[in-house]
């Protein structure tokens, strides 16, 4: 390092020195922060707890369905419940979320039937829900691509004059989800740039779960991810991604800032992917169990439970929730098997709004061929 290096250089370690917003410690203690506060009461924290608990059950059931061969793949989100529920519950109905393929908790917050999330992984769907109905785009598999869609949507909100009226029913904003690996993609950095240039009402919500499949965050970046926003001309905030109160408070503030017409924010939710990247992955090849054990102590759900118990939440609440989760599990198992099988013939009609003669011809040929097999009796 030479003397000419700028003194604004902060850290050369992605885990490095960057202020962390935390409002609930791993031990379940509420702590104050100079700028951010969770505004809700204990009833609302119980609602958040319910979401966290149900999200984990979705993950658990989907994992089991994969092991039973009912779905081909699953992208587990265990460990990231607070980041997703905290941010997802900070959205208003008129807001719009652009997810990756792991935002199962956000989907829950947006009213998407969790069973519909399974279609993509069962191989019967490429989407599964109506984005406009839920304000929740389809899962995006190409890493980072959706951050630009979010930015464009946000530019559209500005064009529609849907920001900056101090009107909670009218003002809207967008949230773009992505991970630490995505920060290496051109699309994400372009989205940061466009959002800044156009002062777009978008919140970039990065769940830094420490791994992009096997590659640690230090393979994606030299400095803290939240620090990067400054270079693009907007604010980056690092939040304890396992603290649902902090994630909710910080996202609420950032979304409101966007709705007020004051532009984008980057939130780095510092968390950990407790499970594998997907059910096809083997994390024991690239990380040691001691690291995982350390993060178990920071579990996003356990700390809320501890807090609620100390506050005198009756056991009946937890028992009722457990029963609700059981019902959700039953629903998922049944609904998964009931998902309709795709029909190749029907797919020819959804390539375009206005179909083409070529597709019509190929569809007719496919159906004729399929019918000829049925007539002749296809081999077993």
């Amino acid at each position, binding site marked *: 390092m030479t003397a000419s290096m700028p003194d604004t250089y902060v850290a050369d370690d992605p885990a490095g020195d960057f202020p962390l917003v935390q409002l609930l410690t791993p031990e379940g203690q509420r702590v104050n922060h100079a700028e951010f506060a969770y505004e809700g009461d204990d009833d609302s924290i119980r609602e958040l707890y319910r979401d966290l608990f149900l999200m984990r059950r979705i993950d658990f059931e989907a994992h089991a369905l994969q092991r039973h061969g009912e779905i081909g793949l699953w992208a587990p989100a265990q460990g990231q419940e607070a980041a997703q529920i905290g941010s997802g519950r900070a959205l208003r109905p008129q807001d719009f979320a652009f997810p990756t393929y792991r935002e199962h908790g956000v989907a829950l917050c947006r009213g998407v039937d969790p069973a519909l999330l399974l279609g993509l992984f069962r191989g019967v769907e490429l*989407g599964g829900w109506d984005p406009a109905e839920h304000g929740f785009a389809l899962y995006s598999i190409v890493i980072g691509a959706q951050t630009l*869609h979010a930015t464009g949507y946000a530019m559209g909100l500005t064009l529609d004059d849907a920001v900056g009226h101090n009107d909670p029913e009218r003002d809207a904003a967008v949230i773009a989800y992505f991970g630490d690996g995505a920060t290496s993609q051109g*699309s994400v950095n372009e989205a940061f740039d466009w959002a800044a240039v156009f002062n777009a009402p978008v919140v970039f919500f990065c769940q830094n779960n420490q791994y992009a499949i096997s590659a640690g965050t230090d393979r994606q970046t030299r400095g803290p991810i939240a620090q990067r926003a400054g270079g693009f001309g907007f604010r980056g905030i690092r939040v304890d991604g396992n603290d649902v109160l902090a994630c909710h408070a910080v996202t609420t503030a950032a979304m409101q800032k966007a709705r007020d017409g004051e532009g984008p924010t980057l939130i780095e939710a510092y968390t950990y992917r407790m499970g594998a990247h997907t059910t096809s992955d083997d994390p024991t090849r690239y990380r040691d169990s001691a690291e995982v054990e350390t993060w178990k102590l920071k579990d996003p759900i356990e700390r809320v439970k501890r807090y609620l118990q100390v506050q005198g939440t009756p056991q009946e609440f937890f028992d009722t929730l457990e029963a609700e989760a059981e019902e959700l599990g039953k629903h998922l198992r049944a609904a998964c098997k009931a998902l309709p099988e795709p029909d190749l013939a029907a797919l020819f009609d959804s390539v375009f709004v206005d179909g*083409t003669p070529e597709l019509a011809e190929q569809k007719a040929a496919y159906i004729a061929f399929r019918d000829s097999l049925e007539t002749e009796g296809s081999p077993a």
Partner: protein
Amino acid sequence: MTTAKMPLGKGLNAGLRAAMEADEKVLIMGEDVGQLGGVFRITDGLQKDFGESRVIDAPLSENGILGTAIGMTFRGYRPVLEIQFDGFVYPAYDQIVSQVARFHFRSKGTVKMPIVIRIPFGGGIGAVEHHSESPEAQFALTAGLKVVTCSNANDAYWMIQQAIASDDPVVFMEPKRRYWDQGEVDLLSDPFPLHASRVVRDGSDATLIAYGPMVKTCLESADAAAEEGINLEVIDLRTLSPLDLDPVFESVRKTGHAIVIHEAAQTLGLGAEISARITEKCFYNLEAPVIRVTGYDLPYPPSRIEEEFLPGLDRILDAVDRSLAF
């Protein structure tokens, strides 16, 4: 009948203006499209008249242009995007192929992508590297994209409006070396359908099949051949995906000789697909194999020798002779 004489580029400009007047959800976005009016002035004057919110000067980021346009469609907008030059479209290729082309399919029709991607394409203007490419086949082979190209001012005026009115994504290839070619634009007539090919010169001896910048070259070739008593039919494909080859089949059944001409390289170019389909549909009518006259399988050459690389009158007439002599 109201007609106006104007160059092809002005036809596009007038068509864009008409589309923006007809539908306030139509937006233009691209690099330097605002005050400058685009490097070819295709968007000249539009920002002045429609404002900065409808004619958006984009950051220098093609991937960003495509990616944000997708988000705008979710708000009901119909973005018309200018890619400054053919060779600069590749940074946006992922968003075009993996996103724009698939949303309608992935969502079973719930999400529409009424995006037009304007790309000035082809060579012949003495440009530096990456300014003379012909990547149309790469879009035409992508399921979920429609691809069209115009060859004259009237088509430029009408086809750009039809592409903008399409609820499907359309890659609109503009023959940049023909931007300055004058033509009559019929401002009132019912337009010819967007996805339809057209016979632009009747003939009986052989069929020349071309699109975009090569249509004019083929018409000139046909004029030259006529002096030698050879009567060539010329078809302007206009639509590259879907292809409309019924007029081609009809012509080839009449002439028995088919020659496909394009600037893009030969291997796996549009000519390969067109040749295959002619063989499928006109097998017993063919009196010679379908011949392709195309750019060579090279990266685009230095511009001082581009006329040797590009199909021209001599190569086309040579192919006609070979076909007729077969």
